[in-house]
């Protein structure tokens, strides 16, 4: 079972810097996906998008999915070239 870290972790991704909010394709960069040891992030199409144009960067984004497995190592924050990831938590 998952090792439980005290408190709740919150990971926010600023979609005005990465993903469908701007023309930054998260599939090209995926720096946060690569560095995350427990694979907390999910790369997905925005809800309702279908693959009519599979290369449309506006239709893809990254969501932090398995928040409780985050070890708070902050590597995603350091690795993001757009500075779009923020990790906060309450003790």
């Amino acid at each position, binding site marked *: *079972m*998952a090792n*439980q870290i005290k408190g*709740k972790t919150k990971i926010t991704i600023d979609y005005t810097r990465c993903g469908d909010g701007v023309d930054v394709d*998260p*599939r090209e960069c*995926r720096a946060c*996906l*690569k560095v995350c*040891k*427990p*694979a907390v*992030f*999910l*790369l*997905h*199409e*925005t*809800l309702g*998008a*279908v*693959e009519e144009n*599979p290369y449309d960067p506006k239709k893809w984004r990254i*969501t*932090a*999915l*398995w*928040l*409780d*497995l985050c070890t708070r190592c902050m590597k995603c924050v350091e690795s993001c070239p757009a500075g779009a990831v923020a990790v906060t938590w309450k003790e």
Partner: protein
Amino acid sequence: MCDLCMKHGAGGKWYLNAEHYSNQIVEKYNLRDFLMEQYKNFEQISVRKVHGFNAVGMGYKLRIPIIGRIVKHTAEKMLHSTNPPTNPFKAEGHIGQVIPLEDAIAILETCAVEPIIEKNCMCRYMARGEKEACCINFGVMSEIIDKLPRFIPEKDKYFLTRKQAVERFREHNRKGYIGTIWFGPYPYINNLCSCANPECAGLRPRLDYGIKSIYKAEYIVHYHEDECNGCGACVKFCQFGAIELDRVRKKITINLDKCFGCGLCRHACKQNALHMAPRDETPGFEKDY
């Protein structure tokens, strides 16, 4: 025999029952449209709300007293469902089992319905953005994947003969990828995966949250201690953390509770100290699936 075998195995292992692979099931439940819709939107499924819940921060929801138990129960009920599949955005009737190399070969040689294809793994793509061709699919899946370019391998071969499929699976298995077979959706078997932890979306609920999304294999490891020279090569191969190395005694210890019976540790052992034995003949672990 696991629960699935008792119900669907026709006297043996459920995944060696050829009925579950037949194209008739596809026609009966109109699975062409269902699977098309499901795979078109595959990456979205975890963030899409079902009964007001999605998987975002699910670990925290599971920790809430009572509500956590309801969420777990609901998830298991959905995964184990044997009702005709209705909603392609839910992982309905999507239950699997770990299998060792031998059983996977038996499936590929006798049960799998042609055409056999190898597509990019969705889980590795969702979790890491990597396209790696290691999911072997059968039957109607080729019609569906044909229309979804992101799943079609660029470098590797797409259509496989039975022999090539066995070779590819053997390659993945020796590399240390866990063999798994899935209903998707029940009662149709179309996916033979080579999974990795923590990327695999099917192993994650079981390993991190204790939700039975996948059963342990029909086998369990048996260890001949006299043969072990304590090299520790198997420790890295076990993705379930069942093997530990005792550096002083120069022997390994195996936690059988954690053994899923994937048989990967055997590939690492040059001393031939690790063997697979039927789980239901291993005292204490007969019902541990």
